[in-house]
């Protein structure tokens, strides 16, 4: 039973990590129907930015709390700036293009950004400073849940709640949903579609950046390639949960994380990804639009 709980907690942590990235994925997909392969790179850039800022600050002797706040804000600001710029350069000109063209543009962007960071910084792995200290009150259960696990979990939950609220009830949220469903009509009710799309990219990127910082601090290292696998996994999770749905992204991530954890624990980690993808196929067969995705309303 202990073992089960341990694996369960591992799975939840992993899921929460995926969720932080998956939320941005799902938002961007929801609004422009684009699998934004560059989202993983935004996450990576967020991690790098926070790494650079945190290291500079710690060299100049700032206190830990200040470092966390400033590095987090910087990561969010710059990642958002990247997200915003990428949308303008690589996706906006393709709004009326065939459906797959922006996808290829995104793949190109992803390759470009990886190599940009590789060249501007380094190909090596860099030690990421431990931003989240071990909390004393966590010590009794530290062998199961660590402090950074806890912080990630709380962040994910808070972010999900805020986002769900924003999308459901605020003006910008309504504008996002309307834009997602019918862009022409959104324009006709007075929504500035360009701004809404930009806002989506900015929010999604900021989330990825926060995720980047927390996850890098949890893992303890970064390099230019970390965005790729994380991105693919987060995308899988977003689809599993029903792409476009905020709670879906979180649920999908948790299911994915738990599956991988239990697969590792009870079967073999050799095949953890096989289990993850097999589960994905299985769920989609029975629920073709994901766990919480709405069935596309097809009225003929």
């Amino acid at each position: 039973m202990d073992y089960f709980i341990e694996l369960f907690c591992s799975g939840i942590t992993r899921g929460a990590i995926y969720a932080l990235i998956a939320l941005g994925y799902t938002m961007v997909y929801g609004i422009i129907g684009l699998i934004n392969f560059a989202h993983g790179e935004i996450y990576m850039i967020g991690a790098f930015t926070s790494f650079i800022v945190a290291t500079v600050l710690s060299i100049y002797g700032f206190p830990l709390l200040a470092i966390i706040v400033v590095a987090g804000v910087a990561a969010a600001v710059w990642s958002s700036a990247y997200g915003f710029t990428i949308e303008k350069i690589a996706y906006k000109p393709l709004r009326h293009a065939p459906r797959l063209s922006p996808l290829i543009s995104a793949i190109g962007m992803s390759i470009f950004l990886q190599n940009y960071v590789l060249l501007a910084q380094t190909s090596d792995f860099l030690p990421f400073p431990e931003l989240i200290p071990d909390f004393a009150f966590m010590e009794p259960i530290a062998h199961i849940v660590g402090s950074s696990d806890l912080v990630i979990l709380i962040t994910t939950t808070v972010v999900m709640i805020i986002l769900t609220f924003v999308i459901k009830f605020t003006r910008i949220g309504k504008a996002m949903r309307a834009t997602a469903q019918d862009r022409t009509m959104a324009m006709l009710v007075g929504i500035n579609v360009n701004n809404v799309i930009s806002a989506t990219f900015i929010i999604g990127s900021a989330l990825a950046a926060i995720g980047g910082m927390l996850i890098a601090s949890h893992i303890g290292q970064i390099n230019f390639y970390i965005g790729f696998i994380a991105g693919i996994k987060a995308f899988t999770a977003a689809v599993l949960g029903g792409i476009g749905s905020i709670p879906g992204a979180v649920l999908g991530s948790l299911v994915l994380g738990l599956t991988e954890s239990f697969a590792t624990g009870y079967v073999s980690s050799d095949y953890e990804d096989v289990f993850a993808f097999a589960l994905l196929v299985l769920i989609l067969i029975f629920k073709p639009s994901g766990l919480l995705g709405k069935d596309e309303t097809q009225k003929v």
Partner: protein
Amino acid sequence: MFTLKEIKKTVLISLWFVFLTFPLMVIKVDPIEKTVLWRWHNALYVAIGIFCIRCLIEFFRHRKQQKEKKKKNSSDDSQALIHRILVDPRKRNIMLGVLLSLVVIFPFVFDTYQTNIMITALMYVVLGLGLNIVVGMAGLLDLGFVAFYAVGAYSYALLNHHFGLGFWAVLPIGGGLAAFAGILLGFPVLRLRGDYLAIVTLGFGEIIRLILENWNEFSMGPSGISNIDRPYFFGINLSLEHSILYLYYIMILFLIVTIFIVNRLQNSRLGRAWIALREDEIACQAMGIDKRKTKLVAFALGAFWAGVVGVIFAAKTTFINPASFTFLESAIILSIVVLGGMGSIVGVIFGALILILLPEYLRALSEYRMLAFGAILVAMMVFRPQGLISKIRRTYTFKQE
């Protein structure tokens, strides 16, 4: 031509990029030694670079507009030229003749290296044509196409390794097994639409790769299979140069066969059904088309080509391991199809030649190679979103008897 306003905007954009790239380009930290390196010169390079790029883009846009204004009604650009040639059967035959002779003498004009990468490019042309059936014609987004390629490659590698089966014997087997894998994948995912299909195929591709990686007894795991036979030439074992030459001609022949078949498929009852399915599934079913069957056939046929090319791949490199069959490979093949122009055979050929030869010729840029590759991919999509060569519309001439 450049107004003050334009210049001001360009300067602002440059400044924005300086801000954007500031942490990554300017600061470099060493967390162990606790040193910070401020590389201010990089900021300057970014500013100048972006300024120039933007000026260049504006300049070309301006010129294009001027041109368009001048000759408003004649819509002749390079694409129209290709179309004109393709539409006129005489011109087409002449062009085909010229092309064919060029292709045949190619290895004698260029060195082995060029021939070698040309083989790779041709392989990707065929892969692209295969995926084009699935994505371009039937409209099923497949991000795991590389799985079928792997099935083909491993079929040959394993059958050759264990049973000493030759290239020609495995060629159809590899294709057949891949097609079977295509149907296997097709069955469960038929119900899925659009991007849900994409992620499942991506997952399928990963599953195949992971199995190859983990199941040592079957696939020899990550260390791969080496010393795979190159194709024999009537029982003779050729030298390296000659076998490259031989493979080149095999590939050419195979490509011609592929084009022939794909072209015929496209203009058949089945091809029409694929296109209709892509356009509107519900209407398609209401017209009596069996969605399942039609989709499965598309999957199987696409996979078949991938499998056959996989066999050739294994024979060419003589060594294979799972590292060759990653998602990125699928992404490149998909890029070929989209970049070339979905559904267009000529487009796919161009797309493959560009995307495969480009990184090779970009070798001169050394470490900037992949950076440039990514940027070019984006630029090509932005400036030619519909692909290099759009599909020629088939028109039917109707003669009453």
